[in-house]
């Protein structure tokens, strides 16, 4: 059958992995999404509810793809609540990808922002050294720690969980831990995804050290394909020109770290 671009294909959830009390990974068969570049996303239709942008998660088996969702508002909760056998629609992959660098790599993720970083970790060559910082509020909300260790088994690596309340791993924000690391070590590449305020700090710190840095941004997305304009930031469309932008671009942005847009397109402060 002829594929129609930008139309959803229906997939069936085959497996659900509980990551934390509020985060689940949904696994389904999809040859195309199973092979995407690190950082790319898909538009996910939850029939009868909404369609949301989701980063494509790594799935362990060949031919499988996954999304990792945190239950927040109505739509993400509906996705979270789906059962094995439920149908979702997916279109994509969309967006650009992280530029893969060699050498010492630092991944800084907060919450479900770890999703694209896990895929990026899979692309690391065995000779690269990788440090992963994972931010969460508390011990219960730490996830992907085992998975990251498994993905990076062939690399010299470190996976550092950071909790805001200090109930597990290092106490504090990932940015506090990063500040110490980047003071001691010269990295060849820093990659970040998570809350924008966090990414803003990461980018500033890396820029101050003249270290290559990329961030994957989240904006209100309706079409995902550069038509509706809802995801614009400065003169770029995050869905089409991003979602990954480099430190040089971000340091010049008037909006990154400061504002985002409402569903009506009004700029609001963070």
């Amino acid at each position: 059958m002829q594929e129609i671009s930008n139309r959803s294909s229906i997939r069936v959830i085959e497996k659900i992995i509980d990551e934390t009390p509020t985060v689940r990974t949904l696994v389904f068969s999809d040859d195309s999404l199973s092979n995407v570049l690190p950082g790319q996303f898909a538009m996910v239709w939850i029939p009868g509810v909404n369609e949301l942008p989701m980063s494509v998660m790594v799935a362990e088996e060949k031919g499988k793809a996954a999304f990792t969702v945190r239950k927040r508002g109505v739509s993400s909760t509906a996705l979270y609540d789906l059962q094995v056998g439920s149908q979702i629609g997916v279109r994509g992959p969309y967006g650009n990808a992280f530029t893969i660098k060699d050498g010492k790599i630092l991944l800084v993720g907060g919450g479900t922002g770890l999703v694209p970083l896990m895929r990026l970790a899979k692309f690391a060559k065995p000779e690269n050294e990788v440090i992963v910082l994972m931010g969460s509020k508390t011990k219960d909300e730490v996830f992907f720690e085992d998975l990251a260790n498994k993905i990076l088994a062939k690399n010299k690596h470190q996976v550092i969980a950071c909790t805001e309340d200090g109930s597990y791993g290092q106490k504090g924000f990932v940015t506090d831990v990063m500040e110490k690391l980047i003071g001691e070590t010269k990295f060849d590449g820093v990659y970040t995804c998570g809350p924008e305020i966090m990414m803003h700090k990461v980018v500033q710190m890396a820029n101050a050290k003249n270290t290559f840095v990329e961030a994957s941004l989240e904006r209100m997305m309706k079409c995902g394909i550069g038509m509706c304009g809802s995801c614009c930031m400065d003169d770029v469309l995050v869905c089409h020109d991003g979602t990954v932008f480099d430190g040089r671009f971000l340091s010049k942005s008037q909006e990154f770290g400061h504002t985002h847009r409402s569903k009506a397109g009004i700029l609001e402060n963070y």
Partner: protein
Amino acid sequence: MSPDLSTTIGTLRLERPTMLASGILGISLEVFSRIYQSGAGAVVTKSLSKEPWEGYPNPTIVGIKGGYLNAVGLSNPGAPYFAKMISQNKTVPIVVSLVGSIEEDFEFMVRQFEGVHVVAYELNLSCPHVEKVGLEVGDDPSLVTKIVRKVKSMTKVPVISKVGLGTTNYLDTVKAAIDGGTDAITAINTIRAMGIDVETQRPLLSHKIGGLSGPAIKPVAVRCVYEISSKYNIPVIGCGGVSTWEDAVEFILAGASAVQIGSAVGDRWIDVFSEVNDGIANYMKRKGFSKIQEMVGLARNF
């Protein structure tokens, strides 16, 4: 010498004959500026309402064979916010698209743009998927006349009326807009349409019925441009399914002085403007035309 791509739509002069269609991209001046620099002769804003509108839940835009279905629900930040946002504009030819239900809505909105650099207003009399505005206004010819007359009385810049296919014969809507003093007509908007996913057995759009755009509607739009420009002495902007220079030339030969491009941006990105412009220029060279106006409506000679 390369042919002159400038064109005039009544008193509106554009350097190039391709415009960004309303509702596509840009709610920011920076994006408009980028699209202008990439080759569009002018950019039309999303249709603005008096107050901010969130629009419908997703899916709001889906790809189908031959184009797209959309029911965005006219999501927009509202005319007052928007006017402030573009108040620094000096260089970009922005056409402000407005949508409302009654004369007073338009009066309120036009007032917001006093002192702001805009090159024209486009009145959306044709959005097919939001109640009480758009097509429902277009389907009421006496209301159309009143709204156009009101806006005309408030501004010196050209007023363009965008018509589509509703329940009233669109030629009557055109006539009503001309009676109100409209300077030009844009034809057409999307056409009411629907798609259903056979696996889930559900409508594709959350709003169920939306508007069809893209190559699938081009022959209909070409027909409308041809009919309007044959029947009335009014400049027409062709809109609906333009994605190549051939499409644009077809509209011009049918009677359009310029074309708007919407859906093709989704497939070809904003490079589409310069691609279409270059194609038109090559065609003009090959056929010996030196100005766009020499080609407008030539197909009506047969």
